[in-house]
């Protein structure tokens, strides 16, 4: 189930089943736990200078093993992939912005597209 497929326990608890037998999406507290675990994992990645934990997954698995397990234990695997990709995307976006700023580009009023100020 998990992205790395390493351990069985690194997957979120089975979702609650609704009255018509369909699994219910994570509720507010489950989401909060997932985001917390994600932030902890990303803090660890930041400390070790890892941006893309998908392409550098061996290094990430070695240095941030505990946080990675916590991340996967609290978030659905699709969410894990989504957040990891998003981290890379946001990093690249910030790099581009800084590069443009260094080149003397003028900032336009308005805001970046979807997810612009998510965690920055």
């Amino acid at each position, binding site marked *: 189930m998990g992205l790395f497929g390493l351990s069985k326990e690194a997957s979120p608890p089975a979702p609650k089943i609704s009255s018509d037998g369909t699994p219910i999406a994570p509720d507010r507290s489950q989401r909060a736990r997932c985001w917390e675990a994600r932030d902890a994992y990303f803090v660890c990645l930041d400390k070790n200078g890892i941006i893309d934990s998908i392409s550098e997954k061996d290094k990430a698995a070695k240095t941030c093993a505990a946080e990675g397990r916590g991340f996967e234990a609290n978030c659905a695997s*699709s969410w894990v992939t989504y957040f990891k990709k998003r981290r890379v995307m946001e990093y690249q976006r910030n790099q581009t912005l800084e590069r443009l700023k260094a080149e003397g580009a003028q900032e336009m009023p308005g805001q970046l597209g979807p997810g612009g100020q998510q965690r920055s």
Partner: protein
Amino acid sequence: MSKVFVPSKNLLATFSRALRHGNPQPISAQCQRLSTITTPGLPRTAPQPSCLHSTPKTGVRTFSTSPQRKYKTVQEQRSRYRSGPFSWKAGLLFLISGAGLIFYFRYEKARMERKRVAEATKGVGRPKVGGPFELVDQNGKPFTDGDMKGKYSLVYFGFSHCPDICPEELDKMARMIDLVRASAPSSAPPLLPIFITCDPARDTPAVLATYLSEFHPDIIGLTGTWEQIKQVCKKYRVYFSTPEGVKPGQDYLVDHSIYFYLMDPEGDFVEAIGRQHSPEQAASIIKSHMGDWKGK
């Protein structure tokens, strides 16, 4: 131009006397003056005899058949000629109507600006956002576009397994609903918040009921078959990428547009509210559009 030109009595008397006695001298000055009145373009240097000769023997009749003028006397005409077509009355009228127009245009300009946004999608040849649909709400009851008529609807597309953006936006939506309800003009149509899932395979009515109750009790959650959802997304110009025929337990994400669509009581798109708007800004946009609604 309604007044008939009537020469003054003594002028007529002089004229007829001159005709009777065949003496052109005493009327020459008057004749010249009259000729400048009736034919302003005539050069003043026209020979005086020709003035007399051109006048038929029945002089009085000539005057009565001459072009109609609006001045009773030569003096009146002269004074009008000196002051031109302007007078203090005309000036005052001009200023009053001018001030009135300026006031009117300023008042209309602000209203028209909002109207322009609201009506950008009305009429022929405009991109159409929204349209008829048939879905099911979170209680399993059918819900169509007809249920949106007569209310301002705030439509949001999302799915319950959305990692981070949808929950944030739904929290924002809940705040917007409360802000608008707290201070909307009482005459305005009510606000109807709607959540349409892009992920019908996993978002059954029961799932939506549980999910949405976390945000705001008044949000109506709509779902349907894959085909129905695809059609409604197409009508609202929402990017739809949900794979067909997924199994309920499967773990996947759905890409979708993340705008709030404000629809007017006739079901026409008014304005899109995006992530850059705070709930307060969004609520004030919604309220000003609601205040404009006159009911058609």
